[in-house]
């Protein structure tokens, strides 16, 4: 017993050295900065993607243009199927301008690899999708991808 008491008074718990903490956090920070892409747009339409088992990943994100199709989040904007291009609701007839604009942003060598990802709600009627597809054909954006969640099907 005496042995324990003797040392208890003098011994102190050593302080945790936190000097390397900022380094650690910075390392994580840089990891995130490198691996992720900034969220480019806020969604104003709501959609649930359909599921498919044979999906492929879209490789180069800078070459991908998104078309979101769904029901507006704000009911004042309507309750039917609408399309969002670049942060605002648009009509099918606006697609050609939008594609041309997105295409001009890429350099010439990459323009042929431009992919359009159609993110549409699973309850969308095919008429709408077909109209979008026809518009994309006219705009010569022929590489498309039907966005889907990976899942059992």
């Amino acid at each position: 017993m005496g042995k324990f008491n003797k040392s208890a008074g003098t011994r102190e718990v050593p302080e945790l050295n936190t000097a390397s903490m900022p380094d650690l956090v910075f390392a994580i920070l840089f990891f995130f900065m490198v691996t992720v892409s900034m969220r480019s747009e806020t969604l104003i339409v709501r959609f649930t993607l359909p599921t498919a088992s044979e999906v492929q990943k879209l490789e180069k994100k800078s070459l991908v243009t998104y078309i979101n199709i769904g029901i507006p989040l704000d009911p004042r904007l309507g309750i039917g199927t609408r399309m969002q291009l670049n942060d605002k609701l648009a009509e099918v007839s606006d697609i050609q301008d939008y594609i041309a604009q997105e295409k001009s942003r890429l350099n010439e060598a990459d323009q042929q690899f431009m992919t359009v990802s159609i993110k549409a709600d699973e309850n969308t009627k095919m008429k709408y999708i077909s109209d979008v597809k026809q518009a994309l054909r006219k705009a010569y954006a022929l590489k498309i991808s039907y966005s889907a969640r990976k899942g059992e099907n």
Partner: protein
Amino acid sequence: MANRKKRKTPNLNSSSMADISFLLLTFFLMTSSMDTDSGLARRLPPPPQNEEQLQKMDVQRRNLMVVLVNYQNQIMVRTQAGDEWYNNIAELQGTGGKVPLKEKVKEFVLNANNRFDLPELIEEDFGPPIGKVLVTPDHVISLQNDATTSYKAYIAVQNELVKAYNELRDQAAKKYFGRSYKELLPEQQEQINKLYPQRISEAEPKDYVQQGGGR
């Protein structure tokens, strides 16, 4: 002079450094999205030069498989070898005891028994180690839908078609290279893709309802 000797440079207090970097970290965590987009890749045909060209595409009847998805999401598959109906997507995948669409597509693309009512077999050279093989380069799967078909059903059918091709390619990869398709080199995958090209045509929708149900 004596005073100057005593003076020391004060240490920079870096205790708040961790807080600042945490703040930055949380900012990036919130604003970035980790989800990678995935989907079924397709290639659309170029726009028609004029209206007459629209429907002109000569395909021999035996080379054509028509997959129709109607407004109730029922599916009909027509080939020269026979028709098949599926009442819903589950049946399409083979739960109702019917031959699943995937098997029908595989049979159609392979035409292993050289039947006259399945696509024409043509011998082509695919380079070593595949060599000369009988394939059906002219087959076409035409996917047609109604105006009110749901996107979900459409994607499910597309998925089944792609699955059939993927399984065929995997089989071929195992046969010729002894490995699964995913493990092959890009050039080898290219070879296999040439062996079984995905020939899915997405036709313009026909609005059956507005045309009075006629075809």
